[in-house]
């Protein structure tokens, strides 16, 4: 009953389960102000969607989610286009490399394993960081939250800042009010592009802290520019995944979008009534539980000692 057939994934799934998963991730997205892409793919894998299809379709869903955000930020003048284009250049290179990597992994039967392993590492890092940060916040210690990072920093330049300043091809980014080598956003874009292809994430949860802490960009420009880069990187990844790996399920992406849109609206309203640090502890716990479930899935003796050679 209420089952929906996903033609590219070649499997069925409950309509309300998919809408619910999208809604849950959208709710978290609205509550915490971070993207849910990194949580959605593992949840899809857990309900039986092939990992390669889950990651590729999540990229497709992110295109839709990032479109409206980019449009709104661009109208408000919050997009640093030169910076965004450099990030995008890197994203296209990284995304192309990542899709080729997935193609190779699909051929060797390792795509599912690598996707899950990458998620475990990343969820462990993000979840632990959020948990420690929010507990420190609850105790009243200085919080390293992204939202506070646009406060003017007056400390002397760190080693990493001196290294970045010494790189060639310096460019003035007026909208962001920073001057740095064009190589920095290019390399950052490559990293995020690879992650977008392998994990089906937008990469905002990596991009935003790096732009704030490492590149010293103002927060409002960071969000708009990050969304701009994510939008086009995910467009590129979606087209490449569809062309090379045939793993994009449009129907799945649209259902997830429908759920996440509604969830995000609800989350945004709820977030105004709840305490931020408590919410962060909850979010960290959800991430760590998801990570633990994935670890158990990989460590637990499989149902059969044979697996299909392709993940899809």
């Amino acid at each position, binding site marked *: 009953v209420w089952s929906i057939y996903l033609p590219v994934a070649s499997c069925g799934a409950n309509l309300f389960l998919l809408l619910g998963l999208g809604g849950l991730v959208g709710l978290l997205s609205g509550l915490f102000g971070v993207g849910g892409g990194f949580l959605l793919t593992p949840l899809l894998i857990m309900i039986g969607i092939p990992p390669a299809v889950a990651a590729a379709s999540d990229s*497709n869903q992110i295109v839709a989610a990032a479109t409206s955000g980019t449009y709104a930020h661009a109208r408000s003048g919050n997009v640093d286009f030169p910076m965004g284009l450099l990030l995008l250049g890197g994203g296209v290179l990284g995304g192309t490399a990542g899709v080729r990597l997935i193609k190779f992994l699909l051929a060797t039967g390792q795509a599912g394993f690598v996707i899950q392993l990458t998620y475990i590492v990343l969820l462990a890092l993000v979840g632990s960081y959020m948990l420690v940060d929010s507990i420190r916040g609850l105790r009243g210690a200085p919080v390293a939250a992204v939202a506070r990072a646009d406060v003017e920093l007056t400390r002397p330049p760190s080693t990493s800042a001196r290294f970045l300043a010494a790189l060639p091809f310096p460019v003035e980014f007026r909208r962001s009010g920073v001057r740095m080598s064009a190589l920095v956003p290019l390399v950052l874009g490559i990293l995020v592009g690879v992650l977008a292809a392998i994990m089906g994430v937008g990469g905002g949860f990596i991009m935003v802290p790096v732009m704030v802490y490492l590149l010293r960009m103002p927060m409002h420009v960071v969000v708009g520019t990050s969304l701009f880069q994510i939008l086009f990187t995910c467009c590129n990844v979606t087209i490449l995944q569809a062309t090379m790996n045939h793993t994009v399920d449009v129907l799945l992406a649209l259902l997830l979008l429908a759920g996440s849109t509604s969830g995000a609206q609800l989350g945004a309203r709820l977030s105004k009534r709840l305490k931020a640090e408590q919410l962060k502890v909850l979010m960290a716990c959800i991430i760590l539980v998801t990570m633990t479930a994935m670890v158990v899935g990989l460590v637990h003796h*499989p149902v059969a000692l*044979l697996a*299909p050679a392709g993940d899809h």
Partner: protein
Amino acid sequence: MPSLPAFGLLWALLAAASSTPRGWAPPDTLTITPETARTGILYGGVTVAVSGEVTCGQSVAALLTGPGTDLELRRQTRVWGIFWAPGSRLKAENVPSLYLLHSSVPPAELAPDTLLRELGIGDHAACSNEASALNDSLRLELVRLRESQGLFQMNVGGLQWEELAPGHWRVSTTFHVPTRAPPATYAIQLLAFCDGQVAEQLAGSFTLEQGTFAGFLDSLATDYGLLYGVFAVVLALAAGLVVGLVFGSPTRR
């Protein structure tokens, strides 16, 4: 000209024939409902009801099998002593795309092993590899894999009997064809065993067709990947703009 006793005998035979239950037919056909189904977008698998009439014993097996295909597989091996990951490659030949068996008694009790192999009943039906290419333990792992995918099931039970007349039964069962079963024509058999031999064998088929929209999306994604990718992106861009107009700016990624 026939004699009077001969007329009497003929009349008695006709009278005996007319006393056979009405509607009873010779046990040579299977009733399959539905005979065809389509994989639409709201397709969640299909339940196929099968019934046929038998006259011999209570050892009956109903079998639904899909066309055979060769499968590329990998052995699951330990990585770094912790994780399970796909390892060396092997090939399973002529694996039925779907195998559903309902039997009144455990398959091994239906008939001798050689006959069951010949009929394609039991674990060895999972593939047609020579024993040297895919040994028994790996064959069992293949069965487990296919069972976990819902594509290989052997159930003792699930058959219903209705006695039509002394010595005549209508046997019926239902098969659930899962969503992972590919569009194809599936063979259905009802076999009645007596003294370890096949006494009756009724056969029919069920056809699963690719639905128009699902088939269109599948063939577009497979045969025209670039066009499909562009279509997916344009659709997502349009959906994103609509969402933006209706709800305003969403959260950041």
